């Protein structure tokens, strides 16, 4: 069996309309993969940048997977939320990114999108906040039935991941 180490951090987010953001993240892999150590999901703190646009989380990711096959390479899915001064949380974007398959240090930008409702919903959203959310978050990374969705692109989440592969060459995998 081959092993995969993912070591890195969720650096922060930029390009969102408001500033006070937090992120719920998770790593999802196929059936042939098994997590040996590390937390595969979590939630960052709420960060309000004083200067500049980027909200920094620096949330650590340290995972050790083992696998029997190549199907279901791990994917990282994110949900960026905004917490306003009243304590309400509003969804600001879903995003997902594949864990890179080549070893080394990668600086990744994960773009996010948010579902849009009808124009009445959008008007209400401007005043009251809220907005439609996905009923099941599997849709972020499954891709089926997506064409019914009407979305708008939101900001980007920056990540830095170092990928270490072990024993993959023993089984003839080149990456």
């Amino acid at each position, binding site marked *: 069996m081959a092993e995969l180490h993912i070591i890195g951090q969720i650096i922060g987010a930029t390009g969102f309309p408001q500033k006070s953001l937090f992120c719920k993240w998770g790593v999802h892999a196929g059936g042939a993969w098994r997590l040996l150590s590390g937390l595969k999901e979590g939630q960052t703190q709420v960060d309000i940048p004083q200067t500049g646009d980027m909200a920094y989380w620096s949330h650590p990711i340290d995972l050790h997977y083992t696998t029997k096959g190549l199907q279901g390479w791990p994917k990282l899915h994110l949900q960026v939320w905004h917490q306003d001064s009243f304590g309400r949380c509003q969804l600001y974007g879903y995003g997902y990114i594949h864990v890179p398959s080549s070893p080394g240090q990668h600086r990744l930008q994960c773009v996010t*999108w948010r579902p849009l409702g009808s124009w009445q919903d959008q008007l209400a959203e401007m005043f009251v906040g809220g907005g439609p959310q996905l009923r099941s978050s599997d849709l972020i990374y499954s891709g089926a039935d997506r064409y019914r969705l009407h979305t708008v692109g939101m900001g980007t989440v920056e990540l830095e991941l170092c990928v270490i592969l072990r024993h993959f060459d023993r089984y003839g995998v080149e990456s």
Partner: protein
Amino acid sequence: MADGWCTDTGESVYRSRDASAAYPFFHGVSDEFCFVIDVQYEVDLYQTESNCQTPLERQYHTEIMAMERSKRRQNQRIFTYTDFDRFSKWEEVTQSTPTFLAERMANVRHRRQERRPVESVVPKSRLITWEPSEEFIKNSHIINTPVQTMHIMGDLGPSGKLGLKENEYILCTIKADGNGVITIKPDFNNNRGAYRLETQGEKREVWRLYLENASSDIHAEEKEREQRMYRDLYTRHKDYLNSLVGQDFEMVRIIILIQTHFSAQGYEYDNLYVHFFLDLPNSNVPFHGLSGVTQTCRTSSVGKEDVAFFSYPFSFETFFHKEDESDGSLPQWPVLYFKVLSLDFWQRYRTEGYGFLVIPSTPGYHRMTCRTWRPLQSGTVAELRRFFIGGAPELEDISYVRVPGTFKGKRLSRFGFRTQTTGSVTFTLNCIQHARAFIDASTLKKRRQTVLDQLGGHSQQGSVYNVLEAFQRARNRMQEARETLPRDLINTSAQLNSESSA
């Protein structure tokens, strides 16, 4: 009075391998440093057993008794105060007007902190303490690691009048924390000048202070034992991990795994979505079910452009079979065809562009931008229709974008086909190639062949390679044969050559 006093009394930091620097550190001889901790005052105090309260003090007591019995010479002048002695607290608290921070730090330092667990177990409930107590605030306000302090004191009074508290001066302060970091203030002299110590009191004396590191190196066998222990620990942990991991792996012929997501920018209309197909060459069924449609995304401005982000997950695994290949052709990599469309509020949909992308043949991370075009019809009617009602001429066969599937001849001509350039789509791909041939190559240490060569066993590249191999073999045979020839034959031929050239 000598010149060359060392005026640098800054502290210096050392790291000790003995990371389990717990309470027995200062007591007696440890791996790194040797200390002497007898003192007249302490001896008197601990001689009477009733004075001993903590286990440490009881240990002092037994040692002193042992010392008395063996009649060792007692060191009269140099002694130490450590964290665990009762006096050090008095010593430090009687500073004049400590600052607010110092006060807090002093109290915090003397408190024993429990070791925080370093595993990745995060408590799921009761993460927040809503009503912290004063003690909790004091503990958590300042980040500190538990530090043990030892002051080496010198009794600098006149001989005969030892044991007075006024004559005690701090010679050196040693702090050790749980991570094995040792701080010594002031540092060892190391051939710099001596430190200068002036006594107060009636007779002001000046003392010269030298600090030397008098510890002996660790014994070779102990060091060896320590190394062996570390090695055992690591191998055991490695075995444990290996047992978790296991030995099996799926074996396939050749597989290419692609994961990608993309974004589209520079298009005329908003609310874009992408419809894409993956075309496998040489396969009987076109568009082998590997297609997808993304969600409709409204563009947002990034910089000067309007970009639509589709975080659309598609990962494809395709299998290559050598038998499927016809002779004399290079292997073909899969091609991703896509078309970008827009769907607006009134449900009008228009084609925005067509494009294609050849999956890269090298594994790794790739980021590529494909520009797209859309077909134009001559005349204004079509454009007016596109603007008002929506709908535009579309390609019937999307493989026309690259090489039409029905194309059989030698030269492709697209003369007469009018298009207009539209925006571009950026793909980021992660490609992995998995082949049994790679294993053989690496185990035999024969990395001359890439997968391209492996696939082209019957094709031109393969034949070129075969020719090279044959040449190499023939050359080797020739060289071997040459060696077995008698020496004089080779020499005469060399002479002939030189004569002819001369």
